[in-house]
């Protein structure tokens, strides 16, 4: 089974040969591939010198080398890179991206955004409609090019203390537009997943009802239990998560990471419909040995059939 087919099987809620893996972002590819991706000032300099294609190709090749090096089954990329990625790595799954259908409160202007949800619903709905239309347009070429799944529609909707907005406002304003986007993507023959940090429990039913194909990352630091989500919704959507990258991966030992990874697999993988990831991204504060412990544990214990927890 190729990584791409493995990834797709999980998205289709089927059991592949082993639990697939991917990361939304991997901040030290050079530790695996031997060469850093081109970012920041260097990327800006090369772009200004008209070498944008070289930068894109270098970073794409590095992403592919990273996936092959670690056994990741898919990776995120821009629409312009899809054609080349298919040529260079036809065996890997590809993850496209689109915008969000509604603004979310955050940062210093949080209150202005929240005020709109209470006092400017018509204006907000007009914006959501426009955002949904733009997101659909972004998805069209991605689906035509054959990416396995698109990440977007909504992003972080909650913090550790719960959803940013009253659940009623998600049901009333946000989710109808997310559903319209999901329906449009499904109509094109594509799939869509949403990433959100935080405690989503009060809005999870509404979110699942939009028809999204997968949910990333089931934030354990906010009290999200991937086993409970699997039990309630595992027959309706694929779960992407959730080895804790705020604590376990950063602060604990490789054997602790291995234990949590195994526990995550036992809770979420049985029956398929699970893709193993960190609870957000592999960032620079995570020791390499912990990242490797997570990957090795997935290879060792993620072979199907995966026994259920306690079995």
């Amino acid at each position: 089974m190729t990584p791409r087919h493995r990834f797709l099987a999980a998205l289709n809620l089927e059991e592949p040969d082993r639990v697939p893996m991917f990361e939304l972002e991997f901040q030290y590819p050079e530790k695996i591939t031997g060469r850093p991706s081109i970012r920041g000032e260097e990327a800006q300099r090369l772009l200004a010198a008209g070498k944008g294609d070289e930068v894109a190709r270098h970073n794409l090749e590095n992403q592919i080398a990273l996936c092959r090096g670690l056994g990741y089954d898919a990776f995120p990329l821009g629409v312009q890179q899809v054609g080349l990625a298919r040529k260079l790595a036809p065996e890997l799954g590809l993850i496209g991206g689109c915008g969000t259908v509604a603004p979310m409160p955050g940062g210093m202007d949080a209150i202005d955004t929240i005020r709109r949800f209470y006092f400017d619903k018509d204006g907000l709905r007009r914006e959501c409609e426009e955002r949904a239309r733009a997101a659909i347009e972004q998805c069209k070429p991605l689906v035509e090019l054959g990416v396995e799944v698109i990440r977007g529609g909504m992003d972080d909707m909650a913090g550790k203390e719960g959803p940013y907005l009253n659940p009623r406002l998600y049901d009333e304003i946000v989710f109808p537009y997310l559903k319209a986007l999901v329906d449009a993507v499904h109509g094109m023959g594509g799939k869509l997943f949403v990433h959100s940090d935080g405690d989503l429990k009060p809005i999870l039913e509404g979110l699942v009802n939009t028809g999204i194909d997968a949910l990333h990352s089931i934030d354990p630091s906010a009290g999200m239990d991937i086993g409970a989500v699997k039990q309630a919704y595992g027959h309706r959507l694929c779960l992407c998560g959730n080895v804790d990258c705020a604590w376990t991966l950063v602060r604990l030992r490789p054997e602790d990471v291995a234990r949590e990874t195994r526990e995550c697999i036992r809770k979420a993988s049985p029956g398929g419909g699970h893709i193993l990831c960190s609870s957000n991204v592999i960032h620079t504060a995570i020791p390499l040995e912990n990242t490797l412990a997570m990957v090795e544990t997935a290879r060792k214990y993620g072979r199907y059939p995966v026994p259920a927890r306690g079995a």
Partner: protein
Amino acid sequence: MSLAEEIRRKIVELDEPTVKMLVDQALKAGESPLALLEAVREALAEIGRLYEERTYFLSELILASGISQTVLDMLTPHLAAVHEEKKGKVVIGTVEGSQHGMGKSIVIALLLANGYEVYDLGVNVPAEQFVEKLRETGAPVLGLSVGLVQALPSVANVIAALKQAGLREKVKVILGGNAANPERALELGCDAYAPSAVAGIQIINDWTKKPD
């Protein structure tokens, strides 16, 4: 129903336009600004209770704090001559490298509801700015928020800056945010970790409690 009571009720209902109108009406009618201020406090306390029982969510908490701020701005010129005792001063901000402001907003709303004078420095705040504001206000409590693990070293930088400025012994530091936990907070040199906004307020209340 008195105008102050009506204002309290409308703040709890988050009816900002009516609140503004009623406050204006009350001030013109010569109502005591202190009575109106008390109505704001009572409303925020009620909203805090509704938030704790999950009838209200973050959006209501932040909106209520915004409405209350609008009322306070309307009352301020009328309060100039009236001495009003605050429970204490708190400087708060999200450390450099982290843009997360939502958790901090909840804490600010609850601090206001508890009668604190709050100095919000925003997000991505450099260590020196915390020191400057603590010096300027004499606040005995500093609330730090950190939403990204990568920004944890910034917490240590703030603690180091406080020590360098000779303020560390005068200021209690409480840390909150997804990226931290109790052990990490103490390792970084903070005095406490707030696992939730409500728990954080309780810790600050204990610190600022005046002896009987």
